Structures are given as C-alpha cells and as structure tokens.
C-alpha cells in the first residue's frame, strides 16, 4: 500500500511528474521521429514531414540483399538461442546446486560478456578463431553470440530456480523417482517459463547484436551489419523504414516476454531485480 503523500507532498509530486514526463519524451521522441519520417515523401530530414508515402516500405520489400541478411540473422539468432540455453541451463543448475573449485570465478566469467564492452569480447574471440585457423563466417558469429548470451540464459534460469519450490523435487524423490526422472518431470517443468523467456530475450538480443558480430563477420552479413554498412555509405529513407519495422518487432517480442513472466507470477519488481541482481 502506497503511503499517503498528502498535501505538501503533492506539490513535489507535480514537479517530479513533469520531470519524469520530460525524461520519457527524451527517451521516445527520437524513435517516434524516425517512425514518422519513414513515411516522409521528402526522404530523410527536413521539417515538417510532407508527402506521406509507403514508398520506402515498398522499396524495402524488393531489397533482396536486405532479406538475405534477415535470413542470416534468423539463422544466427536461432542457433545462438540453442547454444546459450543448452549451456546456460546446466550452468544455472551448477551455480545453484553444485559446489566446485573456482565457482565464484566461473560465475563472474559467465557474466563478463554482458558488462564488458562488446568490442573486447568480439576481438578476443576473433583472435582465438584466427589462432585456430577457423574461417570467419556465420558460424563464428553464432559462436560469438552463443557464448556471450549464455549469461542471459543463466540469469533467467537461476532466478527461476530460486523461486521454485525445493520441496517438489524432494517429494518426487520420496515418491520413487530417481534424480534423472525428477529432473525431467519436475525441475524442467518448473523452468519452462524462464527458459522460454530467456529464449525470447536471447533471440531479440542476437537479432540486434552488432559489437561482437562486427569482428566475427565473414562474407554473409547479419541484418544489423547490413544496415550498418549502408549507413556508412549514406543515409537512405529505406533505413528509416527498416528501423521502424525492427522497432515494432522488438516491441512485440519484449511485450510477449514480459507477459510470460507476469504470467509466471512475477511483477515488475522481480523482473527488474532478477535482471540486474546477477549482473550488478
């Protein structure tokens, strides 16, 4: 129950509320401008926007190079998702239940790619790849994403483990199931939501990832890198259009992710806490 901030407090609330509105404007205005201008007949820039048109979106549809990169991104994102979860889930279990030498170091190491600037992780992997003699390609990007995003899977699953009722596993053992059966029937069942949530998040982050991909790219571009290379050449209104689409896509993903977690019985607090506790 919120404390009753009566009369004198209300004054301050108003200023604070105005300030908050200002911050929200700052956060959203640029993107809204972008979206508006994706319909702008006059192309990029200029004010006010005129000649509302869908031309740029039409051009987008015919841009085969762009669609190739979208396909590449999808392949990378899905593969990275599989790798990250396949490794992140056991990592979370290990952190939760097993004590082994170097556990603290392991935990920090796993989380490092999230807090270190992407360039460092990207370069490190690049140098390793070159030393091994592996050619740069989508595979190396998959490697990079999969590794860097293990932390996301670990964090989500770990939070899910903390919330789960331990007694359920004990009940399962008590009823005659062995550890493997318990794992499949009880543990994993409880982790369904966190895993799906992690999958969504990893997918979205991978689709947008540039810093690490930048160094591991071969001949095939991912979508962000394709856009990037075009940006370097010059701005086109087509990019506004594709940016708008990306925005809407990410928006959808994140709303779904959020709803999933809320359905799993958490509120904004838990999610914020989980998202930052492990990292910070």
């Amino acid at each position: 129950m919120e404390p009753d901030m009566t009369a004198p407090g209300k004054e301050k609330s108003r200023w604070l509320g105005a300030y908050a509105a200002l911050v929200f404007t700052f956060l959203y205005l640029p993107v809204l401008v972008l979206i508006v201008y994706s319909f702008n007949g006059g192309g990029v820039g200029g004010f006010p926007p005129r000649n509302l048109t869908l031309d740029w979106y039409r051009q987008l549809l015919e841009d085969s190079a762009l669609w190739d990169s979208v396909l590449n991104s999808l392949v990378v994102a899905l593969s990275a998702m599989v790798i990250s979860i396949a490794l992140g889930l056991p990592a979370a279990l290990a952190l939760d239940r097993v004590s082994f030498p170097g556990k603290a170091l392991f935990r920090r190491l796993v989380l490092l790619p999230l807090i270190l600037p992407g360039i460092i992780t990207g370069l490190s992997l690049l140098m390793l790849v070159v030393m091994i003699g592996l050619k740069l390609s989508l595979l190396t990007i998959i490697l990079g994403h999969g590794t860097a995003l293990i932390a996301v899977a670990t964090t989500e699953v770990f939070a899910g483990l903390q919330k789960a009722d331990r007694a359920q596993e004990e009940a399962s053992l008590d009823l005659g199931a062995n550890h493997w059966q318990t794992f499949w029937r009880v543990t994993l069942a409880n982790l369904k939501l966190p895993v799906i949530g992690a999958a969504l998040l990893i997918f979205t982050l991978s689709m947008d990832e540039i810093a690490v991909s930048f160094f591991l790219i071969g001949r095939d571009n991912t979508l962000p890198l394709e856009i990037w290379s075009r940006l370097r050449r010059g701005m086109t209104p087509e990019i506004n259009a594709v940016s708008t689409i990306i925005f809407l896509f990410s928006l959808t993903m994140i709303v779904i992710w959020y709803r999933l977690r809320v359905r799993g019985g958490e509120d904004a607090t838990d999610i914020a806490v989980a998202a930052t506790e492990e990292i910070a």
Partner: protein
Amino acid sequence: MFPRAYKIAVSLPPITWVLLFLLLPYSVLFLYSFWTVTPSQQIVHQWNTSNYRELLQVPVYLEVLLRSMRIAGTVTLLSLLLGYPLAYFVSFHAGARKELLYQLVIIPLWVSYLVRAYAWKTILGSDGVLNTLLQYLHITSHPQQFLLYSPFAVVLTLTHIYTPFTFLPIYAAMEHIPRPLVEASQDLGATPMHTFWRVILPLSIPGAIAGATFSFVLSLGDFLAPLLVGGPSGIMISNIVVSLFGAAYNWPLGAAISACMMLLVIALLFATERLEKKWSLT
C-alpha cells in the same frame, strides 16, 4: 542430495565451454598484446612490451583515452540525472500506473541500438529534423554544425541509449525498500522530502552505483556511436582499436589497448562491487 553423475553432467559442459570460449580468448587477447607486427603485416610472435611502451609514450592514445573517459563520465552523469529521478517517480509516486510506466522505460532498452543511434543522426544533421525545425521557427538562421559529428552528439546519443540501463538497477533497489520504512519515517515526523534524503536515497545508492557502472563501462567501450555521429572530433578509444584491426593493421597494438581497457573495466567493477557492499546492508 544430488548424485555425482548429475553434478558432473550439469557442471562439466558449461565449465568446459566457458573455459574454451571465454577464458581462453580473453587470455589470447593478452597474449597478442605482447607481440609485434612487421611492416609487411606479419605478426611476430616474440614477447616484448613495446606496445605498452608505445601507448604510454605516444600522446594520442592517452589523449583519446582521456576524452573517452570524459565522454563516458558525462554520459554517466547525465543518465544518472535522468534515470534516478525517473526511478524514484515510478517507484514511489506512480500509483496505479507503475507497471505501465516501468514497461515504458524498459522497452527502449530492447529496441535496436542501431535504430536509436540512427534516429539521432537523422535529427541532428544539418539537414536534419532539429535544424530544419529551428530554422522553421526562426530560432536560428542557419544549420548548427556542432549538433552532429561532435562529442556533443556522441554524449547525447549514448545518454539516450544508456539511461534505461542506469534506471533498471536503481529502480530495483528502490523497489527493495520495504514500504513500512517510508511509513515509519513519516510516522516519526519526517516530511516526504526528509524521508527521501534520510531513507530512500541512502538505501538506493547501491543501485545507483550499479547503474553508473553500467553506463560508464559500456559508454567507454562504445565504438558505434562515435562512428555514426562522432565525426573526427568524437573519436573514442575503441575506434582506434577498430582501425588497428582494420586498415591500420596492427593487431598486437590493438590488443594492448583492449587489454588495458579490459583491466580498467575489471578494476572498476571490483571497486564498485566493494563500494556497493559497503553501502548495502540488509
């Protein structure tokens, strides 16, 4: 409670992977920093510290590093100035709309970095929205050049991107503050303002430290925003690294700079972690 086989099956794969693909690469980075490159672009695997000496002796590197730290520091300050009051508002004053407002803040976080950086490019350009708007309103008579391709643009863009990052841990910390504490404070005679200074602020400092660390570290190592909106005066340390791995082909030197950056970041993380522990109590 768990059998040995279970424990091994669960720990071995991730540990192995992490050792191979995280610890090893980071170590290789360090390794490279001690090698050199010949003019014919061959990497000489000979151990010496010439790269580090070059970093210390040639002034441009320190200059750019300092500029990067200045920019990162400014971004951190600004994102705290924006993110902290926002977190306080959403946590304590938003009432029924709290959930919605929280969602509104985290949405930009997950929306493409490129999209957001690019948006500023379109707005700040000499032919961009802001300039044309200003001229349209007769506030200025010609395009303001400093808006784009300057440290100013980099700071603006990075602040825009990292403010939600800063917001998150602060909000989490504030949500962790039990509401009875706020009530107790008011019960004992403290006005909401007083309560903020004496109770909410001290208890949210660990979150602020975490948020500040986030935005500082990530801004420091950012190379995309400078490339998009920074121009020559907005170059940051990571851009130098990028060029050393690109046209200026000197991987060892690039590795040395990256290694320094990495050490700096890790040192910072340790320091802030200890600071957080000192401030955090419950």
